[in-house]
């Protein structure tokens, strides 16, 4: 009995504590609501159209402004890779994975007050093709009717591909073949659901209404982007689209990276999009350690080598570069060992299919230890390419330019005659893609679109990604190994039935691509966010990085 009374008291006390705690946490969250979060960027990120823009700068902001049928969970850590229903309350996959049926949530409105309907969903999928979204051919070509839409975007209907039923409030998407990665593709901003009245061409600087907790109130690429609370928003899913803390979020353009860091230190701004300059890193890591957040990324820095023109049409020449580069030296350029990890392969650590592999090191095995310059020189001599002229192309920002200069120095050391050429960051991604520019080797980075091995291996080194003479040929090495490509297709099919088995095959493909060396992998970077003193509740999503609206400023 005494025991029972004690137990009863304990239960009552626990209940009281829970009530107080819940109440106080609710009060705390409420008290943090409000204020303006001030973000900075050196330059605007281009068009504001969520189905056209392909920059991290705005994809990060789209998380709070637009929704798709599905969404990546707004959470920190690995949970950010979970795909959850967003504008759809539920979905079922039928017809052996070829038909996806989504039931829309009711009562959700765009920021202009209009309710979201099945017509908006159907129109949004057509719009992906009408506005020639950069991933229309890559991500959504598997939808029935997509082939015709890719040929004549203006008249795209996706007949038989996407249809809506207003009575049942459902949307059905039919695929030409099962695609296990389709859920990821529906959760990226290019699949945002927009009003059916949205323009059928790139909206440019004119904001399109969305369904998120915020809407874009104004956008002047020479000055500022302003996000305000969506007056029609109510939280329907904490996981998919949580309510935000600040009343307003602004991103101002024009300050240099140095000036951005100083402004944040002085509390004049809360965060800068651009990576802090190398000579300020020590200061951030010591004086402002509490305001500096480091997070490993599923990304890699690499140097694609054009396998179709000399000297890198020779396997030994490509392997020589891999043996010669000192990953530790490159990491020093990037900011030191706390900001990156050496790597030799395509897939980054923690990614599906990743199994550590490094043949290009002093003691080949799973990890890189030191460069083997003697072996590299021997390979260059064997390749018959000694003395070949090489131009290393890089973007002209501080770090990439320095990496380009370093690579040229290493190439000279092992027997090539190399120079480094830095080009504008505006064309540094597209220029090397076009075979007409005869780029031999260049400095690039790849950050995942979604957590699947194919997003690295198939996108960057698949035959389908190589389009000679086009600026849109993401396979910059021009690498097309038919046997490896067949395995990629096999792995993609395998994903439908078993991701673990598919990932085992992706691991094998990763090793085989690494052995063929169409690129020299340098390192896996970490992300550095430097925020002002007043920023609280910093949440970093591995998928879309800092969830800006989930932080408070008061």
């Amino acid at each position, binding site marked *: 009995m005494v025991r029972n009374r004690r137990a009863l008291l304990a239960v009552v006390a626990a209940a009281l504590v829970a009530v107080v705690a819940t109440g106080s946490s609710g009060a705390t969250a409420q008290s943090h609501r409000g204020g303006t979060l001030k973000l900075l960027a050196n330059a605007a990120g281009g068009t504001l159209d969520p189905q056209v823009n392909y920059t991290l700068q705005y994809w990060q902001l789209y998380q709070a402004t637009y929704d798709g049928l599905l969404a990546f969970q707004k959470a920190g850590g690995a949970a950010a890779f979970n795909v959850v229903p967003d504008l759809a309350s539920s979905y079922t996959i039928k017809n052996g994975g070829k038909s996806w049926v989504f039931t829309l949530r009711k009562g959700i409105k765009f920021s202009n007050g209009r309710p979201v309907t099945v017509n908006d969903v159907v129109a949004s999928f057509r719009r992906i093709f009408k506005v020639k979204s950069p991933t229309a051919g890559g991500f959504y070509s598997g939808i029935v009717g997509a082939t015709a839409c890719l040929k004549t975007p203006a008249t795209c209907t996706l007949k038989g591909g996407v249809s809506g039923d207003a009575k049942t409030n459902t949307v059905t998407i039919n695929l030409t073949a099962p695609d296990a990665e389709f859920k990821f593709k529906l959760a990226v901003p290019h699949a945002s659901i927009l009003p059916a009245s949205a323009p059928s061409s790139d909206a440019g600087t004119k904001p399109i209404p969305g369904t998120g907790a915020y809407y874009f109130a104004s956008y002047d690429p020479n000055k500022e982007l302003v996000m305000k609370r969506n007056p029609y928003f109510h939280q329907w899913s904490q996981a998919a689209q949580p309510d935000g803390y600040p009343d307003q979020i602004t991103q101002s353009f024009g300050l240099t990276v*140095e000036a951005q860091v100083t402004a944040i230190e002085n509390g004049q701004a809360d965060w800068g999009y651009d990576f802090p*300059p*190398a*000579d*300020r*890193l*020590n*200061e*951030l*890591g*010591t*004086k402002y*350690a509490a305001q*500096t957040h*480091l997070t490993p990324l599923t990304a890699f820095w690499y140097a694609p080598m054009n396998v179709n023109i000399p000297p890198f049409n020779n396997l030994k020449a490509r392997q020589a570069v891999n043996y010669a580069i*000192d990953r*530790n*030296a*490159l990491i*020093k*350029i990037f*900011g*030191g*060992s*706390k*900001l990156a990890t050496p790597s030799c392969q395509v897939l980054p650590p923690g990614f599906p299919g990743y199994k550590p592999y490094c043949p290009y090191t002093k003691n080949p095995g799973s990890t890189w230890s030191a460069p083997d310059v003697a072996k590299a020189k021997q390979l260059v001599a064997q390749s018959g390419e000694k003395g070949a*002229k090489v*131009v290393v192309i890089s973007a*002209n920002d*501080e770090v990439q*330019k*320095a990496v*380009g*200069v*370093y690579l*040229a*120095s*290493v190439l*000279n*050391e092992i027997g090539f005659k190399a*120079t*480094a*050429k*830095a*080009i504008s960051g505006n064309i540094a991604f597209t220029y090397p893609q076009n075979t007409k520019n005869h780029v031999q080797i260049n400095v690039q980075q790849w950050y995942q679109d979604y957590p699947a091995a194919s997003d690295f291996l198939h996108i960057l080194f698949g035959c389908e990604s190589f389009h000679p003479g086009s600026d849109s040929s993401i396979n910059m090495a021009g690498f097309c190994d038919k046997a490896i490509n067949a395995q990629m297709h096999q792995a993609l099919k395998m994903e439908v039935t078993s991701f673990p088995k598919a990932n085992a095959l992706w691991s094998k493909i990763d090793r085989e691509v690494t052995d063929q060396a169409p690129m020299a992998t340098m390192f896996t970077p970490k992300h*550095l966010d430097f925020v002002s003193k007043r920023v609280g509740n910093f949440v970093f999503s591995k998928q879309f990085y800092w969830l800006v609206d989930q932080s408070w400023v008061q």
Partner: protein
Amino acid sequence: MSDLIVEEVPAQAGGDLALVAASPWRLARRRLLRNRVAMAMAGLLAVIVVLCLLAPVYAHDVAHTDPFSSNLDGTTIVNGKSVPVMESSTQGLGLGVTPIGPTWDLHHYFLGADGQGRDVAARLLYGGRNSLLIGTSAALITCILAVLIGVVAGFFGGLVDGVLSRLLDVVWAFPVYLLAISLSTVLISRGFSLGPLHLTSGSLLLPITIIGLVYIPYVARPIRGEVLSLRRREFVEAAIGLGASNWRLLWSEILPNVVTTAIVLFPLMLAIDMLTEAALSFLSIGVQEPKASWGTIILDGQDVLYTRPAVALAPGIAIALTVLALNVLGDGIRDALDPRAKLRRTD
């Protein structure tokens, strides 16, 4: 200028004035040598040139370094201890890598290292060679072509003058830096090919040619004006009256009188050309890596300006001193060749 001029000079004994015949060149040289400031600056310029020419000696025999190779994992000696050239932070979050600063030891990173771990002092000397080479060559191109165009246009007049003057006007119409940047952007990225002539994108001949060409109107126009004025002078009319051919008039009467203008303008153009080269290289469209010039070193220094300002300051000071020396020397040469100009200025 080929005429002899009678000058009063103190007699060797007794102090009486004696009359001797001296060529204008000799007189100019004498006046220049008397100009102490100009001579001091000539001395400074000579020191800079000699130091730059000794770059390989310094790099290989004194500093024992390769200024064109990255040395990110290297070490050097400071106060008898081995230290990394690029020092990783160990405090706080351990972020950032800082190049070694000036050691003031000629054998070990005298002016410190840049972001690639390269010896700044060695690069400064090598960079000076390229900057001086580009400046001198470009100034020569400018002055030679400008004299040629200015003399032909001014002497022949009419259609020839019309065509050449309009061509100069077209080039003159573009802001000089904008024109140089535009040409460099196109040519540096693609190289230049014309018949058997092929210049690769990294060739120093590209910035030399571009800089040399864009300044031609600035020298050609005053020379043309001077030729127009000379044509009406009595000694030219006398030569015409004596039946001198055009070639003889140009060679014997006109050219000797305008060449002094080109000589006066040469050091000034050299200074301007060096500044232009520095600007283009700073914008990554001049001298290309791994080659160095003072402009590229300033660009390298920009990345470490906060922690290692010496990297940008050293070439900046070198440019400032060289340009100052050239400008003062140019003024001295002008005063020596045309003392009346000095009198006019003092009035």
